[in-house]
C-alpha cells in the first residue's frame, strides 16, 4: 500500500511536449511509473519517446485509460488544465505549476471538492511512493521504501528531511508535497486521513511552514481522529510579518500564521516538533526503534 500514487496509477502528463513536462514525465516513467499518455492541444497523434500525445484529456482517458494527471502547463493555462482533467473523469490531479492566480484556485477548489477528486498542488513537487510510482519532480533517488509517511508544504525541505531519514536507514511509504500556495487542492488533513487508512504507514512526518492555519487544524484533527503517530517540523521561526517567504502562502498576516503558534498548537496535542530537520529525523528513528 501507499497513498495517492501507486502501481495502479495510469499517468497522463498535461504539457508532455514542453521541456519540463518531457524531462520529468520521462523521468517518472524511467522510475517505473506507468506513463500512458501526454496531452498538448494541437499535437494529438504525435508521440514523446513512444508515449502517445492526445489533443484532449478526454482522449487520454478514453483511448489510453489514464486515471491520474500531472500538470506542467504555464500558470495562466493551469486553471483550464485542472478543470479539463476533472471534467474528463481523472481521479487524481497533481499540479506542479507555480504562480497560479489565487482566484483561479478559489473557483477550482469549490468546483472539484464535491466530486471526490484527489487534487494535489499547485506549486508542489508532486507525490512519490518509493518502489511504486513517482508523479512529479521529487528526486526519487534520495528516498527509499519504508514506513514513514511524509507530507509537506515545501519541496526541497522535504528532500532534506528525506535525506536525513535515509541516512538513518529509514524509508518512506509515500511522500506528498501539498504545495506552497494559499489555496491548494489537498490540505494536511486530507493527506493525514489517507495515511491513517494506509496499513503500510507506521509514522507520519508533517512539514509545515508559516502562513494560514492548516497546521493548527491538522493538530486538532490528529488529536481527535488519528492513531498513527505524527511528528512535525515547522519552517519560518525567523520570518518577519507581512513578507511572503518564497512561497505565496508563506506569509505571516498581522499576528496570525506564525511558526510559534503552529508549534504550540501541535505540541498541545502531544505532537513533537523538531527544532531542525536533523532533529526531526532523529526523533523518527527514536520512535521507530
Amino acid at each position, binding site marked *: 500500500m501507499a497513498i495517492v500514487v501507486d502501481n495502479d496509477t495510469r499517468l497522463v502528463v498535461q504539457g508532455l511536449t514542453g521541456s519540463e513536462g518531457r524531462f520529468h514525465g520521462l523521468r517518472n516513467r524511467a522510475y517505473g511509473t506507468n506513463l500512458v499518455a501526454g496531452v498538448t492541444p494541437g499535437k494529438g497523434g504525435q508521440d514523446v519517446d513512444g508515449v502517445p500525445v492526445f489533443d484532449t484529456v478526454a482522449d487520454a482517458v478514453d483511448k489510453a485509460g489514464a486515471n491520474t494527471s500531472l500538470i506542467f502547463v504555464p500558470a495562466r493555462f493551469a486553471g483550464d488544465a485542472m478543470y479539463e482533467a476533472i471534467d474528463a473523469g481523472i481521479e487524481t490531479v497533481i499540479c506542479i505549476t507555480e504562480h497560479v492566480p*489565487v482566484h483561479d484556485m*478559489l*473557483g477550482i477548489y469549490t468546483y472539484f471538492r464535491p466530486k471526490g477528486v484527489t487534487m494535489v498542488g499547485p506549486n508542489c513537487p508532486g507525490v512519490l511512493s518509493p518502489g511504486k510510482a513517482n508523479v512529479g519532480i521529487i528526486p526519487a533517488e*534520495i528516498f527509499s521504501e519504508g514506513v514513514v509517511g511524509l507530507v509537506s508544504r515545501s519541496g526541497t525541505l522535504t528532500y532534506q528531511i528525506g535525506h536525513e531519514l535515509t541516512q538513518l536507514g529509514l524509508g518512506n511509504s509515500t511522500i506528498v508535497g501539498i504545495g506552497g500556495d*494559499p489555496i491548494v487542492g489537498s490540505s494536511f488533513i486530507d493527506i493525514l486521513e489517507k495515511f491513517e487508512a494506509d496499513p503500510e504507514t507506521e509514522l507520519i512526518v508533517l512539514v509545515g*511552514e508559516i502562513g494560514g492555519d492548516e497546521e493548527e487544524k491538522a493538530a486538532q484533527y490528529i488529536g481527535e481522529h488519528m492513531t498513527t503517530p505524527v511528528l512535525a517540523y515547522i519552517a519560518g521561526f525567523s520570518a*518577519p510579518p507581512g513578507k511572503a*517567504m518564497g512561497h505565496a502562502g*508563506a506569509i505571516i498576516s498581522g499576528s496570525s500564521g506564525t511558526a510559534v503558534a503552529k508549534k504550540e498548537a501541535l505540541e498541545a496535542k502531544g505532537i513533537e516538533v523538531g527544532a*531542525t530537520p536533523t532533529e526531526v529525523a532523529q526523533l523518527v528513528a527514536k520512535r521507530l526503534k
Partner: protein
Amino acid sequence: MDLYEYQGKELFKRVGIPVSEGRRADSPQDARAAAQELGGQLVVKAQVLTGGRGKAGGVKLAEGADDVEQKAKDILGLDINGHVVRRLWIERASDIEREYYLSITLDRGAKKPLFMFTTQGGVEIEQIAEERPEALVRLHVDPSEGFQPWVARRLIYGGGVTDPSEQKQITSIVEKLYRAFVEFDAVLCEINPLIVTPDGTVKALDSKFTVDDNALFRHPDVAEMRDTAAADPIEAFAREKGVTYVKLDGSVGIIGNGAGLAMSTVDVVAHVGGRPANFCDLGGGGSAEGVVDALEVITRDPQVKSIFFNIFGGITRGDEVARGILEALDRLDMSKYPIVVRLDGTNAEEGRRLLAEAGNPNIHPEATMLDGARRAVELAA
C-alpha cells in the same frame, strides 16, 4: 502587491464606488497646483503602505493654496513606521456623520471570499473583532454562486443599518466591492472608514487594496502602479534581478534552493546562535547566472559578514551552483566574504569537486546543513 490609497480609490472609481475628488502630489508645488484646481477645504494625506499615518501626523486639513503647500511640506519626508512619505493625495474634505467599515478578503482557511461589515468603523478592525465581536458581521461568499443581493442584505441588516437610502447605497457598494475583488484579482479590498455625510451620502474615505502578484499578468495597468522606490532598495534590486529575497537584520547571508529549505536554513542559523541577514531562494532552476545574481543581491547589504549556501539539488544541480559561485568570485569583488557551501542531491559530488579544484581559500565546504550553519555563524563573528 499593496496599492496606495489613491490607487485603490482609482480602482474603486472604475467599478463605481463613490470616492472624493482628489489629486496626487509628489511635491509642495504639486500640492499647491492641486489646491488651486480643487478649491475649498481639502485634506492632505500621506501615501504610505502602512497603517497609523493619522497618529503620525500624516493627514492634515488645509484650505487655500498656501496652507495646502505648507501642510504638504510638513508631511513629505515624514517617517511613518519606517516608510518615508514621498507621495501625497490631496482630496476634498468630507463632513462625517457616521463611520462604517466594509471589507472583502480571501479567507484561505475557508477557501472563500469573506465580507466583513460593521457600523462601528473608523478604528482598526482587529480592535473591533477583539472588543466587540458581536458588532462585526462576517459572511462568506460561495465563489460558484458569486455575489447575490442577499449577501448585502445580510450585511446591512446584521450591522443594523436602518435608513432606507443608506441601505440602498451600501447594497450597491457591497456589490461593486465584490466586483472589484474579482475583476482585479484582489486578496483584500477594505474601506475604512466608509462614511455617511450629513446629507446622507455614503462613500469610501480610505482604501486598502492588495492584488495577487500571480495575477498581475491579467492587469498590466495595475502592475504599473508598483512604486519600486518605496521598497527596501536591496529588495527592489532583487526584484529587478528576479531573485526571491527578503531582508532580515543580521550578519549571515543565506542562499538556499526552494522556499522551505531557505526558510529552514534561516531558522537553523538562528538556532545555532547566528543572526541571519536575509532569506534568499534560488528557486527550482538555480542556474549559474541565478547564483551570480543572488550573490550580487545579498552582498549589497553592508551588514553581511559571511555567506552560507545550503543547496539540496532536485531540479537544481550542484555543479551548476558551484559554477555560479566560481563565476561570481571572478566577476564580483567577493574577497571579504567567507562562503560556506553545503551541497547535496543532484550532481553534488561534481559541484564539490569543482569548488575543491578552484582552491579558493574563501570557500569553506561543509558536509551537512547543521555544520554549515555553525561554520557560517563562526565566520560572521
